């Protein structure tokens, strides 16, 4: 099985090719430049994997939460490629990608993934490793003030993501334990690819036009007061 994975929800722009169990990936810190480089990155991983676009069996993407324009970029690229090649799509949470990376790199089985959502809030979710070695969401993804995060974590839980940079102290307090954390971790396509595998195998896919962002934050516009005098 062969599929592409794209993740552009944060300042890290990354793509990966899942090639019959092997993952070829590229990743670059490129704030505000994802749009310029991401398709060339796709072309390079496909070339490295000696895979043509017509040989792909699907496409996975990090659907957020994260920067709105970033998650829409991954969704629109996914739609474009999937429509052209008539491919099934697997949307993968960008928070889950963080959690899966922590398991793969540090061997942890519980992760409090947390991305800075600006406006004094964080995107946050708790993940637990399942028997397939896949990080599973516990509860739901939230956008919330760090001081209102309400989780019950184990001693071996690990914190991951940019939300741990400005709010580590508050988050540790909310956890009630002194857990390890990696504030520099960013969601990457490599782990979007890992998470997508069982879903492709089980046929848990969506159609090209259903490749849509998951924003989590919905209060994005205020209705004006009429200026009628």
């Amino acid at each position, binding site marked *: 099985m062969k599929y592409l994975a794209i993740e552009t929800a944060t300042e890290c722009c990354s793509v990966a090719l899942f090639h019959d169990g092997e993952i070829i990936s590229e990743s670059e810190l490129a704030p505000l430049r994802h749009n310029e480089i991401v398709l060339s990155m796709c072309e390079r991983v496909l070339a490295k994997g000696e895979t043509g676009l017509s040989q792909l069996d699907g496409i996975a993407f990090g659907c957020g939460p994260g920067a709105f324009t970033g998650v829409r970029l991954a969704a629109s690229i996914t739609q474009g490629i999937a429509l052209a090649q008539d491919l099934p799509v697997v949307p993968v949470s960008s928070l889950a990608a963080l959690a899966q990376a922590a398991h793969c790199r540090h061997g942890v089985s519980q992760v409090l993934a947390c991305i800075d959502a600006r406006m004094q809030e964080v995107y946050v979710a708790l993940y637990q490793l399942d028997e397939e070695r896949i990080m599973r969401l516990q509860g739901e993804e939230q956008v919330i003030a760090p001081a209102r995060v309400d989780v019950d974590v184990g001693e071996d839980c690990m914190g991951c993501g940019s939300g741990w940079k400005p709010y580590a102290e508050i988050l540790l307090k909310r956890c009630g334990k002194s857990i390890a954390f990696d504030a520099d971790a960013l969601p990457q396509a490599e782990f979007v690819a890992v998470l997508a595998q069982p879903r492709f195998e089980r046929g848990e896919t969506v159609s090209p*036009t259903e490749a849509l962002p998951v924003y989590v934050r919905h209060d994005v516009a205020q209705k004006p007061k009429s200026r009628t005098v």
Partner: protein
Amino acid sequence: MRVLGIETSCDETAVAVICERQGLLAHHLFSQSALHSEYGGVVPELASRDHIRKLGPLIQTVMRTAQLSLSEDIDAIAYTSGPGLMGALMVGAGLGRSLAFALGKPAVAVHHMEAHLLAPLLEDAAPECPYVALLVSGGHTLLVEVRSVARYTVLGESIDDAVGEAFDKVALMLGLGYPGGPQIQRLAKQGDPGRFEFPRPMVKRAGLDFSFSGLKTHVLNTLKGLGKPGPQDRADVARAFEDAVVDTLRIKSARAIEHTGSKTLVVAGGVGANRKLRQQLMQQLGEQGVKVIFPAPEFCTDNAAMVAQLGLLRLQSGSREPLSIRVQSRWALEEV
């Protein structure tokens, strides 16, 4: 050769397919104006969120209507890459560029205003170059001399609010909905033309630039001066505002025709649908032997047929977009 065109620069999601030999094969549009109406104007983030939901299905609808297959029948993808709202542009450019990449076909990034300027060429009775175009919409107020494809001279533009924006803001002051143009036109019909005399901004000054910000403030002050304006007061204000805008556009258009010696004026953009503007331009310029052309309403406002058409023209002249998704919120027409 068939080109798929995509337009997402503001609050319309539009897709079209054009054929080199057969012309426009299909075009569809989804307008977000209802979504933005309760906010009194376009909310960029909401616009972007809607584009990503609507664009894919719209592409499928257009392909079904034209009875074409993306992989077999489309030779290039054209999309608006500016000027416009960054997030909104990014959806169309991102999907369009990736579609071309995965189809192994060329992509062409087009300038939104240039597409508007050449929209009249979509019609059977297309104007001949050179002509002067008055582009009046929620995002733009421009007078441009079109000497030929890709040879434009901006004669004048708004130094502050776009004329459509002024309509929207005044509509909000009058307690009307969005978009403001049609609602002000309706209300103005009941207004007394002699009650208020609003300024015609910048008409006494030489040159062809516009300004609508001061006129807008003048409306606000007039309403404040009325205390609690009743229905007739509002209608009178709407009338005075519409008259001032129409007069200003007419005076400047006539001046642009005189300046260039052109015999044709093309009026494009949503404000071009205003009846009084149409009448006055036809009347004054018609008397001077100038042909005044209003493209069909569907090609006047934002649409993808004009994007596909310009894409085709650009493709024929050898233009190709690199493997990069490029968008520009600001992009001078003379830089194309």
